[in-house]
């Protein structure tokens, strides 16, 4: 069972309070403008499925209820960072530097 740091509660808490919400930074194209079938497929289905540091979303479901972003190494399952929705996507190089 993982430990997850909620960037809103500013606490590191048991995974059981959280739900995984898939890859992060998959932007929904504005359907008000023309979107090709491929673009829509990419939004719906195509995932990087990274082996290593993975940008992903979690929700503190049994807590503050917020969705937030995280970078987790899918080989070790360790989180490199978690950050609030809307905050800029942290550079991987910086994170790997820090984690050393």
């Amino acid at each position, binding site marked *: 069972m993982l430990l997850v740091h909620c960037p809103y509660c500013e606490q590191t808490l048991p995974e059981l309070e959280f739900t995984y919400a898939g890859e992060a930074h998959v932007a929904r194209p504005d359907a008000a403008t023309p979107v090709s079938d491929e673009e829509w497929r990419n939004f719906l*289905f195509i995932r990087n*499925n990274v082996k290593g540091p993975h940008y992903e979303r979690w929700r503190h479901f049994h807590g503050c209820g917020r969705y937030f972003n995280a970078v*987790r190494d*899918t080989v070790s399952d360790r989180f490199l960072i978690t950050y609030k929705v809307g905050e800029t996507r942290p550079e991987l190089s910086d994170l790997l530097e820090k984690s050393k």
Partner: protein
Amino acid sequence: MTHFSGLSLLKNALTGHKNWEPQWPDSQPKAEYDVIIVGAGGHGLGAAYYLAKEHGITNVAVIDKGWLGGGNTGRNTTIIRSNYLYDESARLFDHALDLWDGLSQDLNYNVMYSKRGVLMLAHNVHDVQSFKRHIHSNRLNGVDNRWLTPQEAKAFCPPLDISPNARFPVVGAALQSRAGTARHDAVAWGYARGASMRGVDIIQNCPVTAIRRGPDGRVTGVETARGFIGAKKVAVSAAGHTSVVMESAGVRMPLESYPLQALVSEPVKPIFPCVVMSNTVHAYISQSDKGELVIGSGTDQYTSYSQRGGLPLIEHTVAAICEIFPIFNRMRMLRKWGGIVDVTPDRSAILGKTPVPGLYVNCGWGTGGFKATPGAAHTLAWTVAKDEPHVINAPFTLERFSTGRLIDEAAAAAVAH
């Protein structure tokens, strides 16, 4: 190579088993092959076997980052069935079932395919509607699957608790009698032996780092830990690692890799005569030839390649099993392990050609890969050999995710209303 039989076993016994040859040699990579298959699991080795046996293509290498059969082939709960809802799935898995039936003899390797019957439990009205839909569809597709009352289910599987006051009472079950289990390692080893007997190179401990393409976009080979290996055609059959490999060819996949845990109990004398699955409580169980209860669970919630998996899921799975089979509460868990399953959005496989000329893919089997092994391998070999879809794997394209023509077995199981 020695033909396996009771006689050859006896002969060798008398000579102290000194004269057995390797079942497959460790090959060093050649400079180029007609076909390279990435991933030496049952699917990859099987494809190589059928390429050699049925299409006469023997200049083939199967390359794996680790030891052959070390992926999901050697980590699953070995359930084999074909009672899927949609025609496409039923056809594919039933083709596999037909091949399973003669596989030991075909391979001259006992894969211990055991037609113990797979019982799927219905726990509520919604399950009944869904199972009946499967059963009628299977019947008209010529796939064996029938409805059992709780009493009939108990007669077929005596340890089953059918008391109506259970939290998830058994209100009926779907039984596929032809279904069952097989010895997972033997499948990989049998295909490996059969393929290398026919000249296929099996290259272990040789990670493929990238797929190379020429100026015309066609595949030219693969980069590996032991350098570049040329190939006219490359088939990727790397399960959880498919996304990573395909990315290097510029093909992004609709896949996510999740940890899937399974466990076995200490071995006991025969007590459990079949396979039982319950999707409602998320658990399935059978008993191996060795006597261990083999128990599978659902996937953990997050994508991962760690092969660890958490305790809560195991707790839930064991609780679910003991809820349906209370007599097992004092049995002991001997070993639990994790695999990595590659899951598609519609829970159906992607099998066949890709946008890249000369590149083929076989992935997205989720938790159902083992049962499909011979069928997937057989049709993949066809597609690689002829560079065209096989009638059975034709619907399992990558394109369906753009058009929306999904084969949604997951949705077909639907949601409780």
